[in-house]
C-alpha cells in the first residue's frame, strides 16, 4: 500500500452526524410536531384502472374537525408531475391508472378524523380492465393507458453483425430472465410538513433527493414563483432512489395553502407507502450470447422489457442505462440490443440503486458462468479475457477514456482466500443435505447523468465569525455519508482541522443547486465543487491577511488553521477569526462559490437514450452460499466485495456502502418482491415484504482496488450503486455451483429452488 500523506483523505473519519443519530437527538422531518398542526391524508384510487365519473366531498367536508378537502379542481397550476415527463396527475381528474393514484386530499385536526374523512369522500368509478402484463401492454389488443400508447420509450444499440457472429460461434446460450419488483424499504416512510410562513413564503420540509427539482415541480403545480418556495430535503431516513421523484411534497404544498397558516403534516403508513411509492422496474430480459472455443465473446443479443407501471417517472432513463450496461464490462464486437419501457397498471416504478443494471447484469453474468462451464474455463479467467481496459472499445462501441478497474478487481478476486480455497470451502457443509457453492460476477455502473441531461455541481464556503467554515452543497446525505466526505475534502484543501467544518445540505434557501443525489454522483460532484470553491476562499483570506498586515499578497502563506504574513518583523500569524473580523469590518464578502461541470462524452450513440457515460465504477463480487436441498433455502455465508471506486476518500464509508449494498443484493436475489395480482398489491407491509435481518448477514469483506480517476476529487469516482449489482449473479452462480440448478426467475425463493431441484431429479 502506498503511504497516505493526507490528513483526512483516505482516513476512517467517523461520520459527522453520528453523535446526533446514535442518541436520537437528530430531528427528521417526520419528527416535528406542533400544537396547532393539522394532519394531511391522501385518498388513493380504489381500482388499478378506472374512469372517474364523479367525486363528492360534501360529507367529508361536513365532518367535525375537517379543515379542508381538496380535489383536482383545487390545483392552481399544472395537474401533473414526473421527473422527465410529467404524466402523473397530482390529483386524478378523469382516469386512475394505478391504486397509488391520489384522488383527493384531506387536512383535519387529528389523523383519525382525516382518515375518517377519506372514507366519506364518494368517488364513482367506471371500472376498466387493467393491463397487468408488459408484453400484453405492447400488443395491439391492449387499451392505451396514455395518449401516445403504452410504449413509453424504446432504445436500440447495434454494433457489428450478430447474425454472422452466431453462425461462426462455438457456444451459444439463449435464456429468459425475470426480475422482481423490489421495494426501497427505506425505514422512514414518505412524509414531512408544509407551512405558509407569515410573510407568504411556502416552506416544505420533506426528505428528497433533489430539493431544487422538487421545488420546480411544486411551483409548476401551484402556479407559483419558485423563489417564493423553500424546500428543505435533508436529513432523510433512507432513500435509495425512492425519494428522487416527488413523494408528498405537492400534497403538503396544496394543503398548506388551505389551512390558514397552520403547519400540515403527512407521514405515510408503511401500507400506503407500499401502494403509492415507486419500485424497482421488474424486467424480462431475453439474452442470446455467443463465444468462441477459446472463450472470446463474439456476440450478444438482448431484448429487455421494463414494466414502469402507470407512469414514466425515470423509466425511460432506467431502460436506457440497462441497455448501455447489458453486455457487462466486456468488449463484444457484435451486439444487437433493444429495450422497451412499458406502461401497465401495476403501481409505479422509478429510480432505484442500480437503475436497470441489476436486472441485466443478472443475465449477462449468468451467461458468463454458463460459457465458462461449457468451455471448461475458469470463470474469472473467462472474464479477464473479455474485460475491456482504458483505451479499449466497449461492446456498445465507445472508447473508454476514464479509469477502468475490472481487471484489478478480478485479479484481487482470484487471489483472495475464499476463491483460492474454494474447493475446501465447498466441502464444509454443515449437514448432509446441505450443499455449498461459490459464485463470482463482475459489473460496472455509470457515474453521472449521461448525455442530454444537465450535470453540474455547486458548493459554497462561508467563513463564520467563530473561525469555522460552513460548507453548503445542494446534494442531500441520503445515508451514504457524503456530508463527512465533503468535510474531509474541505478540511484537506483548506488546510484546517475538520472540526472547523460544518456542512449544510438540501435546502433551497441555504445551498446552491448541485443536481440530484442519484447516479452515484454526489461524492464526485460535490467534492469537485468544493475543490472549485477553495481557491476563491484562499484568495479572499490571502487578500484579507495581506491588508491586515500591510504586505503584498505574495507574502502571505497559507498555514494549518492560520495564515502567515511575511513582514519585516518576521512571520505574523492570523487566525480565521481575525480574518473574519477584518472582512466583516470592511463589509467584504465572507462567502465564496465553486462550480463544476461533469465531463461528458461528446457524441450520443444514436437511439441509446443517453449513452455512453464518461465515467464508470467497477466491482467484482464473490459469494459463498449453502443450499438446503430438502427445503430449497439458501443462506449466503460469505461475500467478498472488490470495488473500484477510484481513490477511496473514507474507507469506513466505502465499506458501509459495500456492506449495505451486498445485503440489499442478497434481499433482491433471495427474498424480495412486491407481488401484484390484477393491478392490486398482494404484498402489504413488512409482514410479507421480506428484507434481510441481521441474522441473514454473512461475513462481508471489502477489498477496494483504487484505480485513480484523474478527473475526480483526489481521484475518486462513485460507489453508491454498483455495490449491489454483481452480487445478484454471484449468488445465482453460487446456487448453481452448490445445487446444480439455475434460477432465472428472481427472487430465488426456497420454493423456486426446491421446484428446480425436484424437476432436475425427475429428469435425471
Amino acid at each position, binding site marked *: 500500500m502506498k503511504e497516505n500523506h493526507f490528513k483526512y483523505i483516505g482516513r*476512517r473519519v*467517523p*461520520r459527522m*452526524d*453520528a*453523535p*446526533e*443519530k*446514535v*442518541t*436520537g*437527538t*437528530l*430531528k*427528521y422531518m*417526520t*419528527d416535528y*410536531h406542533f400544537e396547532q398542526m393539522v394532519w394531511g391524508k391522501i385518498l388513493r384510487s380504489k381500482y388499478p384502472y378506472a374512469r372517474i365519473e364523479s367525486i363528492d366531498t360534501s360529507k367529508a367536508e361536513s365532518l367535525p374537525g375537517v379543515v379542508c378537502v381538496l380535489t383536482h379542481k383545487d390545483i392552481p397550476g399544472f395537474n401533473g408531475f414526473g421527473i422527465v415527463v410529467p404524466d402523473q396527475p397530482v390529483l386524478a381528474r378523469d382516469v386512475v391508472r394505478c391504486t397509488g393514484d391520489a384522488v383527493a386530499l384531506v387536512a383535519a385536526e387529528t389523523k383519525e378524523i382525516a382518515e375518517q374523512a377519506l372514507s366519506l369522500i364518494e368517488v364513482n368509478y367506471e371500472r376498466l380492465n387493467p393491463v397487468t402484463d408488459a408484453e400484453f401492454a405492447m400488443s395491439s389488443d391492449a387499451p392505451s393507458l396514455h395518449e401516445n400508447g403504452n410504449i413509453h420509450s424504446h432504445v436500440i444499440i447495434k454494433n457489428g453483425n450478430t447474425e454472422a457472429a452466431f453462425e461462426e460461434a462455438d457456444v451459444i446460450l439463449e435464456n429468459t430472465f425475470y426480475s422482481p419488483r423490489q421495494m*426501497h*424499504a*427505506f*425505514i*422512514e*416512510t414518505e412524509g414531512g410538513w408544509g407551512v405558509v410562513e407569515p410573510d407568504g413564503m411556502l416552506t416544505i420540509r420533506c426528505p428528497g433527493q433533489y430539493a431544487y427539482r422538487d421545488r420546480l415541480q411544486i411551483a409548476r403545480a401551484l402556479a407559483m414563483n419558485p423563489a417564493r418556495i423553500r424546500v428543505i430535503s435533508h*436529513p*432523510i*431516513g*433512507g*432513500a*435509495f432512489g425512492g425519494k428522487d421523484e416527488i413523494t408528498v411534497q405537492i400534497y403538503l404544498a396544496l394543503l398548506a395553502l388551505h389551512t390558514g397558516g397552520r403547519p400540515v403534516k403527512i*407521514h405515510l*403508513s*408503511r401500507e400506503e407507502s407500499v401502494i403509492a411509492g415507486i419500485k424497482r422496474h421488474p424486467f424480462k430480459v431475453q439474452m442470446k450470447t455467443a463465444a468462441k472455443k477459446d472463450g472470446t465473446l463474439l456476440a450478444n443479443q438482448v431484448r429487455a422489457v421494463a414494466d414502469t407501471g402507470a407512469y414514466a417517472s425515470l423509466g425511460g432513463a432506467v431502460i436506457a442505462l440497462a441497455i448501455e450496461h447489458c453486455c457487462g464490462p466486456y468488449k463484444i464486437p457484435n451486439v444487437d440490443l433493444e429495450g422497451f419501457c412499458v406502461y401497465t397498471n401495476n403501481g409505479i416504478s422509478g429510480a432505484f440503486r442500480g437503475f436497470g443494471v441489476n436486472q441485466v447484469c443478472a443475465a449477462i453474468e449468468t451467461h458468463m458462468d454458463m460459457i465458462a462451464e461449457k468451455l471448461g474455463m475458469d470463470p474469472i479467467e473467462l472474464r479477464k479475457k473479455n474485460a475491456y481496459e482504458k483505451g479499449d472499445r466497449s461492446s456498445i462501441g465507445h472508447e473508454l477514456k476514464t479509469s477502468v478497474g475490472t481487471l484489478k478487481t478480478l485479479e484481487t478476486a482470484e487471489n483472495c482466500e475464499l476463491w483460492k480455497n474454494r474447493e475446501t470451502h465447498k466441502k464444509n457443509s454443515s449437514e448432509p443435505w446441505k450443499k455449498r457453492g461459490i459464485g463470482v460476477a463482475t459489473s460496472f455502473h455509470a457515474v453521472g447523468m449521461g448525455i442530454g441531461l444537465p450535470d453540474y455541481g455547486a458548493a459554497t464556503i462561508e467563513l463564520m465569525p467563530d473561525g469555522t467554515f460552513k460548507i453548503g452543497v445542494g446534494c442531500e446525505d*441520503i*445515508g*451514504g*455519508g457524503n456530508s463527512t466526505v465533503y468535510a474531509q475534502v474541505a478540511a484537506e484543501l483548506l488546510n484546517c482541522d475538520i472540526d472547523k467544518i460544518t456542512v449544510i445540505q438540501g435546502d433551497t434557501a441555504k445551498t446552491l443547486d448541485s443536481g440530484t443525489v442519484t447516479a452515484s454522483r454526489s461524492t464526485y460532484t460535490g467534492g469537485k465543487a468544493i475543490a472549485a470553491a477553495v481557491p476563491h476562499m484562499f484568495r479572499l483570506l490571502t487578500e484579507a491577511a495581506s491588508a491586515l498586515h500591510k504586505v503584498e499578497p505574495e507574502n502571505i502563506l497559507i498555514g494549518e488553521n492560520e495564515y502567515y504574513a511575511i513582514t519585516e518583523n518576521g512571520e505574523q500569524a492570523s487566525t480565521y477569526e481575525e480574518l473574519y473580523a477584518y472582512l466583516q469590518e470592511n463589509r467584504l464578502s465572507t462567502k465564496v462559490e465553486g462550480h463544476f461541470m461533469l465531463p461528458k462524452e461528446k457524441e450520443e450513440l444514436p437511439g441509446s437514450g443517453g449513452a455512453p457515460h464518461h465515467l464508470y465504477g467497477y466491482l467484482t463480487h464473490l459469494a459463498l452460499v449453502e443450499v438446503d436441498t430438502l427445503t430449497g433455502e439458501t443462506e449466503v455465508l460469505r461475500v467478498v466485495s472488490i470495488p473500484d471506486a477510484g481513490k477511496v476518500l473514507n474507507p*469506513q*464509508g466505502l*465499506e*458501509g456502502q*459495500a*456492506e*449495505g*449494498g*451486498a*445485503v*440489499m443484493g442478497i434481499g433482491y436475489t433471495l427474498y424480495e418482491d412486491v407481488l401484484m395480482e390484477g393491478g392490486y398489491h398482494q404484498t402489504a*407491509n*413488512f*409482514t410479507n415484504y421480506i*428484507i*434481510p*435481518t*441481521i*441474522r441473514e*448477514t454473512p461475513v*462481508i469483506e471489502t477489498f477496494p482496488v483504487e484505480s485513480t480517476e484523474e478527473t475526480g476529487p483526489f481521484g475518486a469516482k462513485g460507489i453508491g450503486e454498483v455495490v449491489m449489482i454483481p452480487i445478484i449473479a454471484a449468488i445465482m452462480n453460487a446456487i448453481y455451483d452448490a445445487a446444480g440448478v439455475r434460477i432465472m426467475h428472481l427472487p430465488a425463493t426456497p420454493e423456486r429452488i426446491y421446484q428446480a431441484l425436484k424437476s432436475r431429479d425427475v429428469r435425471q
Partner: protein
Amino acid sequence: MKTIDFFVNGTEISVTCSPSKTLLEVLREDAGLTGSKECCGKGECGSCTVSLNGLPVCSCLVLAGQVHGENIITVEGIGTPENMDPVQQAFMDEGATQCGYCTPGLIVSARSYLNSIGHLPGLDEIKQALGGNLCRCTGYTKILKAVQTAAEKQLTFREL
C-alpha cells in the same frame, strides 16, 4: 381519556390521553421524545424499540393504558451527544449508522441485551438479540462489530 402516570428515562410523567393510544405516539407527541421512530407500525421492524421494565419491546404495539406505573427507557435516556453510552460511542466509532432512522431502536435493543448478559457475546448471540431490528442501509456488519466492541469495553470496565 385517562390519566396515565409512568416513568420515562427516570422521570415520572403524567399524560392524559386515550388508553388506546400507542406508547410510541405518547412518547413522540406528548412527551416530545422523537428518538423512537415509526416505520411499520406492526412490530416487524424494531424502529420504535424502547425498554419496558428492562426488556426491549416495540412501543408501536404497546398501548398507553398498559404502561401505567411502568418504567420506560428510550434512546434519549441511554446517552446524550455530550455523554454517550459505550454502545452509542461504538456505533459512532465503527460507522454503524448511515441514514440513522433505525439507529435509536438498535441502540435500545443492544443496550438492553448487553445489560442482560455477563459474558462476551458471540456473533450468533448478537444476531439473535438484534433480529427484530431492520436496517436498510448498513448491511448490519458494522452494527455487529459495534455491539462486540461495546461488549468488550463494558466487560473490561466491569472487571476493573
